[in-house]
């Protein structure tokens, strides 16, 4: 899910990418870590927004499927698609497939 407005969220948290418009409330070390921190925030009643680029989203698949989904803890995620240069091409292709499975 993409998010255009940040003013509806209590915290923004994530891993920056080139041209990133978000500022993380703490210096996370990985995307799945940021997602798990957001889960903890949400358990406490906050409404966090997680941001990352698409390769980072792929890093998070286990936490989306083994944490967020079974516990039904829904975290708004803003994911930046990056398809160039070549080293981004394949992860972006896989991201499009996985994103379409939601």
């Amino acid at each position: 899910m993409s998010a255009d407005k940040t003013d509806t969220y209590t915290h923004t948290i994530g891993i920056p990418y080139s041209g990133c418009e978000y500022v993380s409330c703490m210096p996370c070390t990985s995307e799945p870590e940021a997602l798990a921190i957001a889960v903890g925030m949400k358990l406490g009643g906050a409404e966090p927004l997680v941001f990352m680029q698409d390769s980072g989203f792929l890093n998070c698949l286990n936490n989306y499927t083994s944490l967020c989904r079974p516990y039904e803890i829904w975290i708004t995620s803003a994911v930046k698609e990056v398809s160039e240069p070549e080293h981004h091409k394949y992860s972006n292709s896989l991201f499009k497939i996985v994103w379409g499975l939601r």
Partner: protein
Amino acid sequence: MTRYEAIQEIMSGITDECVITSTGMISREVYAIKDRPRNFYMLGSMGYALAIGIGLAYTRPDLNVVVISGDGACLMSLGTLVLMQKLKLPNLTHYILDNQCHATTGGQPTCSDAIDFYDIFSNTVVYKVSGEKGEAPRIPLSCKTIKERFCASIDKQVE
């Protein structure tokens, strides 16, 4: 000391704290020793119990948060221990039960014998424990139930 004994010791001092437990036998043994709504049992996502604890402690300074991890899980997310060291959240306590193996899956060795977690992460409490698997059964609660009763216990609902 066994892992079970370490958990008994930790949980004997727990009153109103939120306790986040790592995937596998740690969650099972905490459930067996002292189940309570303020325990959040991780049943998957190995390596991220501390991150959940950081998120909760960061946004809820009115709560005291305790995280119980194993060495295998910590090694999967070492960066999170560094983040904890940086944030210095006064309401977050992290226990590492270090048995130098993946006990839940049969005792396969980790590489934690190469370091002492406490030497690097002075804000953790480290128990050196033996590596037996233990006998605690699976937790008979759904993930959703674990979440709902946890959130009700801290008076917040998650949708």
